[in-house]
């Protein structure tokens, strides 16, 4: 049974008097049943605090929290019908894998045969039937991660919470487990909230993404929204790799005036920053180009080659096909795909154009 999650005006303050720190400032998020919400942001942005508040491990200083329509502020974590996967896995070291998975059921007085059935079902789902008698210390990192997932799945909760569950795994395993989490979410349909600082995880897993910074929700939207219609320059540069090119300038008579010349484009009149993703700029001949620079660095990644072009208005990263001839020092022109350009005002807020 998938449930909704409503976060209304949640605040969190630590300390008192002058030393008070506000780590969450009036957060509003509504998660529909079955959704996969990502909380993403740099460390210290309050995303883990928000997750702990949803879990009931910390209480908010103000605001409302509803799981499946029920107000849960002040309700202890055990009675919120949630399951959580932790960064360190937090497996019980003296218990076998089977006991780890069955512990929450045992605490809820589920009879033993039923418990056993659920443990076996989860083990089959995660392909770890052969590990049930082992202790956590006898497992590899990836296997521990699976057990932590299994422990959460066995409960069949209203809400799954994930606290950076993949950050302790090596790169290859992380990609595998990412796909596994997505598969399990699709199979179970349980509403999930997932905290990460990894933008790839955010983009691949989330049905919606909440980008946070300094305790403030910067933008809440689908991965497509976040990537293609970033609300401000912070979101624009946080999501996407290599990061979006930002070029400062002013709207003038001959277009958007930047250091070293004017770009022939009709920009919104309040525009002060032009945002261009690397895939939305192309290299051109230097001769006759409105925007010129010289190649400073070439970064082949295999599938693409990124060329950093030094211009009078700053460095611009361009995604090109592998093998594009662009020796460092060569003079090149830049052709932006203007229909894909982003415009931001003096405060860095998006201008809809």
């Amino acid at each position: 049974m998938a449930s909704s999650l409503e976060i209304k005006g949640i605040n969190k303050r630590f300390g008192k008097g002058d030393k008070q720190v506000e780590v969450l400032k009036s957060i509003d998020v509504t998660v529909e049943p079955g959704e996969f919400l990502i909380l993403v942001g740099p460390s210290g942005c309050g995303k883990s605090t928000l997750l702990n508040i949803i879990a009931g491990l910390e209480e908010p200083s103000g605001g409302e929290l509803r799981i499946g329509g029920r107000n849960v502020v002040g309700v202890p974590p055990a009675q919120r019908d949630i399951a959580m996967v932790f960064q360190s896995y937090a497996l019980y070291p003296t218990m076998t894998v089977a006991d780890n998975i069955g512990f929450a059921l045992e605490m809820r007085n589920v009879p033993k045969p039923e418990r056993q059935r659920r443990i076996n079902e989860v083990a089959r789902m995660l392909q770890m039937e052969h590990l049930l008698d082992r202790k956590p210390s006898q497992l590899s990192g990836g296997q521990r991660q699976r057990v932590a997932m299994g422990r959460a799945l066995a409960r069949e909760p209203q809400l799954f919470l994930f606290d950076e569950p993949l950050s302790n795994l090596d790169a290859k395993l992380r990609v595998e487990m990412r796909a596994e989490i997505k598969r399990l979410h699709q199979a179970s349909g349980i509403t999930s909230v997932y905290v990460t600082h990894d933008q790839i995880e955010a983009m691949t897993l989330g049905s919606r993404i909440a980008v946070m910074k300094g305790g403030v929700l910067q933008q809440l939207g689908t991965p497509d929204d976040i990537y293609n219609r970033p609300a401000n320059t912070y979101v624009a540069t946080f999501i996407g790799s290599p990061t979006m090119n930002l070029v400062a300038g002013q709207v003038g008579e001959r277009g958007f005036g930047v250091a070293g010349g004017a770009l022939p484009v009709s920009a919104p009149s309040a525009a002060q920053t032009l945002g261009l993703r690397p895939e939305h700029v192309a290299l051109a001949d230097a001769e006759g180009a409105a925007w010129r620079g010289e190649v400073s660095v070439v970064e082949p990644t295999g599938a693409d080659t990124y060329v950093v072009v030094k211009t009078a208005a700053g460095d611009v990263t361009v995604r090109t096909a592998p093998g594009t001839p662009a020796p460092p020092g060569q003079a090149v022109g830049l052709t932006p795909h203007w229909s894909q350009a982003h415009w931001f005002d003096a405060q860095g807020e998006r201008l809809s154009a």
Partner: protein
Amino acid sequence: MTHSSFSWARWAVYGVLLLAALFFLAPLYVMLVTSFKTAEEIRAGNLLALPGALRWDAWSAAWGSACTGVDCAGLKPFFMNSVVMTVPAVLLSTAWGALNGYVLSLWKFRGSEVLFGFLLFGVFMPFQVVLLPMSQVLGWLGLSSSIAGLVLVHLLAGMAGTTLFFRNFYVAVPAELINAARIDGAGFWRIFWRIIFPMSTPILMVTLIWQFTNIWNDFLFGVAFSGADSKPITVGLNNLANTSSSVKAYNVDMAAALIAGLPTMIVYMLAGQYFVRGLTAGAVKG
């Protein structure tokens, strides 16, 4: 070249270790051989000589018939007093320390660090300071001169140390483990019994050995707070050695001292491997 100098250094190390071992084992050897000697063999004066035969006479005298003051029933009643005192005092002080350590590391509350700081006074405080007030308290409780009173004294005296041991061990337990258990639906006691206590074997062994040795070997509280029939073995041994008779029975004194020391030695031999392991584990994690 390097090989020979290496092995030379090796031998030097072994030599030093061997000397140290001899230094500490020599008194034990003298006690052991003397306890099996007859009075004549002792008078012969050769401290290191082996006894003519394995005679248990001195041991049975020390255990059952040697005089401690006016009573001549040997160490047996004192030994029994010590057992009855030590076992509950060790178990209770360890359990109390485990619980305190659990709260002070994993269920911190406002002021818990300050409380822990005050508790540390108990570890470093010389116990002579509390003799008089403690005697007063035992009187009020009606526990003066009783084994129950001694158990209480050892429980209070040992609690600070056992708390310190467990607290420093539990500080290394990640908070996420407690949070996971809370979400799974376990409360304060179930988290302790099902998750935290089963992880505690190394520090449990350290604490049990530490407390057993301290309480069994204690003389100060034993001599200060015991009555006629609640004296522990250390007091009994003292009385036995100080009871003057025409001839000093060194063999009986040595057998008595060995009897008094045997339980701590046995405990260490059975659990000693955990002691070193537990201490180093704490050192690395803490």
